[in-house]
C-alpha cells in the first residue's frame, strides 16, 4: 500500500525526515508513532503530495508519488493534523463543497445521499444547519472524519483522529475504523495516544528525530518476554521458594524468570502459597516507545544560551 525508501526531507538546515523506509501492507491497521516534532506529519504530508521530498522514493497504492499523485489521491481519505472546515458554513455545506471539489469529484446526483451516509457513519446524522464555528472540537473531528470517508477510500491516512473526543467518542471511532478495516480499508493511524494505537493497530512504526527506529507487527512486539509477573500475599515465602529465578520484587509483586505462568502457579499452589495474580510479562507499547524515543522536540532542555 505504502512503500517509501530512504525518504528524506530537509527544511533549510533542519533535517526533518531522514532515510525513512516505511512499509504499510494492504489490510494493515498501521500505527505511526513518534513524539511531537519527530517528523510524523512531514512524512504523512509527503505521502499525500503536499510536501515534496528532498530525496528518496515514495510509492502509494503501487504508484509513484508525487509523479502520479492525481491518480493516487482519489483512493485516499485523509485527516491531516487537525480537521478543518469553513467556519461560516454548516457541516453539510462544507461536505457539499468538498464533495464537489477536485478532479475526482462525486457527481451532483447522489451527493445528498453520500453526505447523509457519511454523516450517519460518524454519528452526526441529525446535525442541523448551524455554522461549523459553533461546533465542539469533537464534532469538528467527526466532520473531518466524515470528509475523509466521502469517497469510500481504499486507504485512510488519519492523524490524531480521536483528538478532542470523549471516551465514548474514542470508542466509537475505534469501532468505526475496525469495521472499515475489516471491509478492506487499509488504515494508517498517526497518533501519540499509545493506548489508542495498542487497542486498534496490528502493526506499528516508530519515528524519532526523523528516523524510523522501529517497524514491526504489534503482536511480535508484545510477545511474552519469557518472564512471569505474579502477585501474592505470601511474597516472602514465594521469593524463597522460587529462589534464583526471581528477577525483581516490589513488595507483593514478583517478576520470575520463567516462561510458563501455569507452571509457576502450580508450583506455588502446591507449596500452599496463595496467588492473587499471575501472568506472562509483556512489554507495553508505552515502555517500548519511550525507550526508543525519549522526549519530543517540544521539550527544550540543556544549556541556556549565553547572553
Amino acid at each position: 500500500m505504502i512503500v517509501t525508501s530512504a525518504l528524506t526531507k530537509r527544511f533549510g538546515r533542519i533535517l526533518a525526515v531522514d532515510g525513512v523506509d516505511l512499509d504499510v501492507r494492504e489490510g494493515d491497521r498501521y500505527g505511526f508513532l513518534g513524539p511531537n516534532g519527530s517528523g510524523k506529519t512531514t512524512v504523512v504530508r509527503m505521502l499525500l503530495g503536499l510536501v515534496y521530498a528532498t530525496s528518496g522514493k515514495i510509492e502509494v497504492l503501487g504508484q509513484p508519488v508525487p509523479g502520479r499523485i492525481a491518480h493516487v489521491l482519489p483512493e485516499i481519505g485523509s485527516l491531516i493534523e487537525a480537521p478543518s472546515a469553513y467556519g461560516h458554513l454548516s457541516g453539510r455545506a462544507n461536505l457539499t463543497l468538498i464533495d464537489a471539489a477536485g478532479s475526482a469529484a462525486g457527481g451532483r446526483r447522489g451527493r445528498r445521499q453520500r453526505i447523509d451516509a457519511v454523516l450517519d457513519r460518524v454519528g452526526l446524522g441529525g446535525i442541523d444547519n448551524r455554522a461549523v464555528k459553533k461546533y465542539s472540537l469533537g464534532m469538528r473531528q467527526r466532520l473531518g472524519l466524515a470528509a475523509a470517508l466521502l469517497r469510500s477510500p481504499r486507504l485512510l491516512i488519519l492523524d490524531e483522529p480521536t483528538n478532542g473526543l470523549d471516551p465514548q467518542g474514542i470508542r466509537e471511532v475505534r469501532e468505526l475504523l475496525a469495521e472499515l478495516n475489516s471491509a478492506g480499508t487499509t488504515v494508517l493511524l498517526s497518533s501519540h495516544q499509545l493506548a489508542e494505537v495498542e487497542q486498534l493497530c496490528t502493526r506499528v512504526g516508530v519515528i524519532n528525530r526523523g528516523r524510523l527506529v522501529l517497524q514491526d507487527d504489534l503482536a511480535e512486539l508484545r510477545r511474552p518476554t519469557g518472564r512471569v509477573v505474579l502477585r501474592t500475599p505470601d511474597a516472602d515465602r514465594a521469593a524463597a521458594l522460587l529462589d534464583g529465578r526471581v528477577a525483581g520484587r516490589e513488595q507483593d509483586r514478583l517478576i520470575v524468570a520463567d516462561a510458563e505462568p501455569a507452571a509457576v502457579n502450580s508450583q506455588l499452589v502446591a507449596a500452599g502459597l496463595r496467588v492473587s495474580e499471575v501472568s506472562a510479562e509483556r512489554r507495553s507499547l508505552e515502555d517500548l516507545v519511550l525507550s526508543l524515543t525519549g522526549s519530543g522536540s517540544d521539550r527544550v532542555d540543556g544549556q541556556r544560551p549565553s547572553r
Partner: protein
Amino acid sequence: MIRVELVKLARRPRSWVSIALLCGLPVLVAVFVAVTHIAPAPGQGPTLLSAVLSNGSLFPAAALAIVLPIFLPVAVAVVAGDAVAGEASSGMLRYLLARPVRRTRLLAAKLIALIVYVLLAVVTVAVTSYLTGRLLFGNRPVALTQSGGITASNVATSLSGTAMTPAEVLIRTLGAVAFIAVSMLGVGAIALFLSTITDSSLGAALGALAALVTSEVLVALNAAAAVSPYLPTRYWLAWVDFFRQPILWRNIDRGFAVQGVYVLVFLAAAWANFASKDITS
C-alpha cells in the same frame, strides 16, 4: 472546481458587504451633492463630478472615479490576498489539494472567482450609481469639449463640444468599466501572487496595497519619470479619456498593455511558486 470557488465567494458575507460599501460611498456623495447643489469646480474634486449635477447618467463614471483610488483596490486586494492564504490559514488548503484538486486548477479557479468578483464589483457600482444619478440629477444632454474637459450642457451655459447620446454614454461607460476591471485585475494578480507566498491573507492584501502606494508615490515624483510608464498605477485614470471627444486612445491602450503585462507576470510567478511549494499549513 470553478463552481465550488464561485459558491464559496457567493456564500461569504464579506463579498457582499464589500460590494455594498463600494456602492454606498458614491450614493453618499450623490446625496450630498444633490442636496447642496455644490459641485466641485471643473478640474477639482473627483473627476467628472462637476458634470453630474446636470446629467445623472454621467454619475456612474463619477462613481467609479470616487471608488477607484482606494476603496476598489482595497476590496480587490483583500479578496485576492485571501485566495490562497485564506485557505492555508483555515487549514482547508491541504484538504483541497488532497481531495485532489490540482494546484494549477485551484489557482485558475481562484483567478476566475477573482475576475467574477472584480467585474461584479465594478458593474454593480456602475449600475447602482446610474440609478442614483438618474434619480437625483435628472438627465439632460451631455456635451464634450474638444479640449478634453467635460461640461454639462444645459440651456444656459455650455454649447461647446459635441453632445453625447445616451447610447454613447453607455458605450463609453462600458469601456471605462472594462478598463477599470483590467486595472483591478492587475492589483488582484499582485495580491494573488503574494497570497501564494504567505499564509496570512492580511499580509498578502497589505503587500499588494503597499505596492500600489509605492507606485502612486513614484508616479507623482518627477525624478522617477523614467520608470513611471511601467508603474501599475500610471495609467489608472486613463479611462477618463473614454469621455473625451474624440476618445484619446493613446493612454487607454498603454494602460491596457501595462496591466496586461502585470497580470501575466504576477500570475506566472504565482503559479510557479504555488505549484512547487511545500504545503505546511
